[in-house]
């Protein structure tokens, strides 16, 4: 063993889990720097949810009547969840790292196998906080109010972010599998359509055909949106919250595991 190898081996007095935590922090910081240094990307990725708020409020809002609630109050919890689903940036960034050789660099380093993915998802989670705050600001300007008190409001936002975090693992996996940034961009939209439009995001599920209701009522986006809505506006929370929590935990476990497996053998 040469001195350098010995030094490298001795340089890691940290137990494995602490070392993994440090690796994740290092990768997260790198990704946050990248986000900060591409302000245009951040700006453009914020336009989409804001357009959704404005379009649905003013174009469709007049035609959609949800009993007992103003449409903006109905709409915004759905938009919150939707913003975190426009997660193609996670897939694109993963694929770009792969295509650009950064993943090979990371994989050749003595670092935790989960750190590149976790660092990606955490950085993107922090990015979503900004986007959600922006959507909340725009929504508030055009009449949205949390009608159920501060604590449930905080819980609602927390749930939105947790949901977004869970989906990012799916997007990270997609990015690793498609391997090409442009394809990742397109693939990132695939989950959006069924999950967002066949859901309770924009309209109540009751008016959909029966066969679709079964899916639309129970799919992860709907149960999460319904929970967020109940937290924001008042109403029974428990049933949907359990389901939403289950989906979130399931996504993190299943797609986290699959993504790390894909990273290992990429």
């Amino acid at each position, binding site marked *: 063993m*040469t001195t350098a*190898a010995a030094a490298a081996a001795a340089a890691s007095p940290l137990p494995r889990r602490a070392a993994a935590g440090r690796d994740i922090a290092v990768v997260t*910081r790198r990704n946050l720097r990248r986000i900060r*240094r591409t302000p245009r990307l951040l700006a453009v990725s914020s336009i989409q949810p804001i357009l959704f708020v404005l379009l649905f409020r003013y174009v469709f809002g007049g035609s959609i009547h949800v009993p007992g609630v103003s449409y903006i109050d109905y709409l915004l919890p759905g938009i919150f969840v939707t913003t975190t689903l426009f997660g193609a940036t996670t897939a694109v960034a993963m694929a770009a790292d*792969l295509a650009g050789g950064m993943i*090979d660099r*990371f*994989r050749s380093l*003595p670092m935790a196998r989960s750190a590149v993915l976790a660092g990606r998802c955490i950085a993107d989670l922090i990015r979503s906080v900004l986007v959600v705050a922006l959507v909340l600001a725009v929504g508030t300007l055009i009449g949205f109010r949390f009608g159920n008190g501060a604590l449930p409001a905080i819980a609602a936002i927390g749930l939105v972010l947790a949901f977004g975090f869970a989906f990012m693992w799916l997007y990270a996996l997609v990015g690793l599998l498609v*391997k090409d940034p442009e394809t990742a961009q397109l693939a990132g939209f695939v989950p959006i359509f069924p999950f967002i439009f066949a859901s309770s995001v924009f309209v109540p599920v009751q008016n959909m055909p029966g066969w679709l209701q079964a899916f639309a009522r129970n799919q992860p986006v709907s149960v999460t949106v319904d929970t967020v809505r109940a937290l924001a506006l008042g109403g029974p929370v428990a049933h949907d919250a359990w389901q939403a929590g289950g989906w979130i935990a399931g996504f993190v476990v299943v797609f986290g595991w699959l993504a790390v497996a894909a990273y290992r053998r990429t």
Partner: protein
Amino acid sequence: MNSAGPVIEARGICKAFGHTRALIDVDVVAGAGRVLALLGPNGAGKTTLVRILTTLLRPDAGTATVAGLDVVRDAAQLRRVIGLTGQFAAVDPLLTGRENLEMVGQLCQLPRRQAQRRAAQLLERFGLAAAAGRLARTYSGGMTRRLDLAASLIAEPPLLVLDEPTTGLDPRTRTDVWDTVEGLVESGTTVLLTTQYLEEADRLAHRVAVMDHGRVVAEGTPDELKARLGGDVVEMLVPGPQLDQALGALAPPRDGGTVDRERRRITMPAPAGAATLRAALDRLDGAGIAVDDIGVRRPSLDDVFLALTGHGAVEDAGSDIARAGNGRRRSGPT
């Protein structure tokens, strides 16, 4: 690592991508403090072998140890003793040069202070100190390559792996990289490098493994490989239309020689040195062929490559374009 044992020892390595057999029963051995070059054209399997030896890819069959560590079983420990510089610079363009190095240092598990110190040293050593605070995307190609190389040296790995370190570099930067590699070897680093350039292998390597179509077709020191041609060679340039006529005239002394039709060049062993040259010239004269150029020289690795594989080591322009078209590094058997 046992300094007496080989740093790299690969036995019977096989790897296939779908129906493409990228590596077929490859054996390679390299000692410490030396440079082993994997020489071969694009698609010979060099990068695949490097990816296996650096734990990025698992072999389908065979075993390999690097620094005494098994590339599959001991992959995690092995990553502590290797520094890899891939074919395309693995540098984050949105980080500064310093941030890039400090990040890699920390991910090599160096304490933060030490990572900073090493980064500063390497920036200085690679002439990047003035640009340390600039985003790497503003760097020239040569600077990016140097930063990439610095990143793989941050933890002072005893084994440095360079996958085509000078491909696409201008001549001056190429010489810089060569000087750097030679300096590292002097200070005891073992280097495994892949190259398509015979000149590079000749200049840097103590041992060369010539690869072609997924196999190691020859291995030895550059001199040993050249000695296979039996000493000096006569090289002549012949007008294109008369190439076949010239070959006919030279037989039987042409035995063991090679022809490069594109360059109108005939190379043949010259066991008797100048006398062989004279004989060849007489024969060509007799056939009424005026040579454009003729001379005796030491054989180059190019001659070795032609003799071993029946084709040149330098890829043609067509495959260069194909490669630029799919700029992805992991295009399977390379």
